[in-house]
């Protein structure tokens, strides 16, 4: 079971992701912004981070950049409502391994995770 950190400022969305993931994965933390995402990543070293982009204090792309600088083998899937091409390019540049656009269904989440962290 892969260990997953969920970073999203929406409690609603964190709940939804937890429900989708907890059957096959271990949720090691849920955080609300990019600063907390980096901190918890460093503490827990999860196998995967599900990272929102638009978050207060520090956004998901900056947080991904720092996580990847800390640990280039870290796996990060952007999980966001933003479907802008330029933003996706920024995510790639920051080192994101996958990109899911909200709203999503369980199969698309599982497929993206399987691509990044094969079981």
């Amino acid at each position, binding site marked *: 079971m892969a260990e997953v950190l969920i970073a999203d400022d929406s409690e609603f969305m964190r709940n939804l992701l937890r*429900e989708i993931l907890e059957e096959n994965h271990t949720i090691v933390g849920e955080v609300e912004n990019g600063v907390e995402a980096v901190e918890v990543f460093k503490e827990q070293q999860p196998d995967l981070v599900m990272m929102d982009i638009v978050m207060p204090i520090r956004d998901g792309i900056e947080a991904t950049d720092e996580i990847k600088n800390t640990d280039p083998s870290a796996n990060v899937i952007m999980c966001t*409502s933003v479907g802008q*091409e330029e933003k996706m390019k920024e995510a790639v540049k920051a080192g994101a391994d996958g990109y899911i656009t909200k709203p999503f269904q369980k199969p698309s989440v599982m497929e993206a995770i399987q691509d990044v962290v094969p079981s």
Partner: protein
Amino acid sequence: MKVDVKSLDTFNQLAHEGAQEATRSMAQMTGIDAAVDVTRISLIDRADVGEELGSGEFVGVQFGFEGALSGETVLIFEDDQTTEIVEALMPGASDDENMAQSAIQEIGNIMMSGFIDGWAEHLEARIDHTPPGYIEGTSEAILPDDPDVGDHDEVFVFRSEIQWEGESVTFFIYMLPEYEPMAQLMSEYAETGEDAIPIEKLAVFNKMTRQGTEKAAENVQQMSGIETEAEVSQISFVPIEDVPKQFDEKLYVGTVVEFTGVPSGFLLVLFDEASAVTVAEALMPVEMESEGLTEQHKMAIEELGNIMTSGFVDGWANVLQQTVEHTPPTVVHDMGQSIIDPLAAQLGQFQRHAFVIDSQMKTDEVAFQSEIHALPNEQELREALETLDVDRADQTEADHIF
């Protein structure tokens, strides 16, 4: 053909003065004070004209006009206000159907003659109009058939609201000119300075807005299972102080975000309270026990608003090949005017007029209606339109990068 803020302002002012002239005529006839509440010019998809009239029954008068401008115009009001209006004009006449109809025709004739004469005077040209025709109908069906728009998908609509002071009587004036003469006239009034916008780019932007609304509706459907359709998309031009008047006093629940980039501005996703509860409950995995709007409902609305906002602005960003960032959503629960007022005030520090982008979506399946309103920085919207490549207008989806 190009328009600029000056020409749009001139024509908005012209329609406003025409409506004021119509109001004065009515006050002379009835002794009732009234005021012109709102006037706006919109560029709107032909099929969407009059959607804001809802499902009510209306009566009024219709005129054709031709000369310096050609087209159709109507003055209408809700059918259940007929008695009040007829009694103000001619006490006792409301019991006689023919007399009531004649009274309406006459007040319409006098008001609309004032309206059209105001235009002719300003344009220093002749505009003839047909005799008034009495009309009645349900919602937008009461409005004239499409004017001649040639190859264009959009129509220009001038819309004014006249409110009787202290009464719940509202008159609506719709003027639908033929596209080409109107565009030509507006471009003649435009200065060829750097703020001029090609009219076709405004039309393209309107199409992008329509696609953004469709995407937002698709997002609602995917998340909630409620089959949702995009209903209206329009771009309107109004003085900044009139922006709050575009909103009614109904209570809304929704989200506000500030977006940055070119253009920057504000974007609101709003639901009436009943729709907010309906859609929030459809998003929840478990059935809610409480009645009415709770914090849990608001939390769901916050995320839905966030996703709808992205669906709406991503298309702009992809067509413009730019990034449009937005802040996390702030949940609002207030009257429409109270929500928009501080946002308009903030933009009002930098601009006298605003382009307001309005969209609406609804479903017949359950009682559900949602509105999206964008209030971009006027100067930046013009810059964005300047760089808009019309040939990329349908490229609202991001290329596959992952």
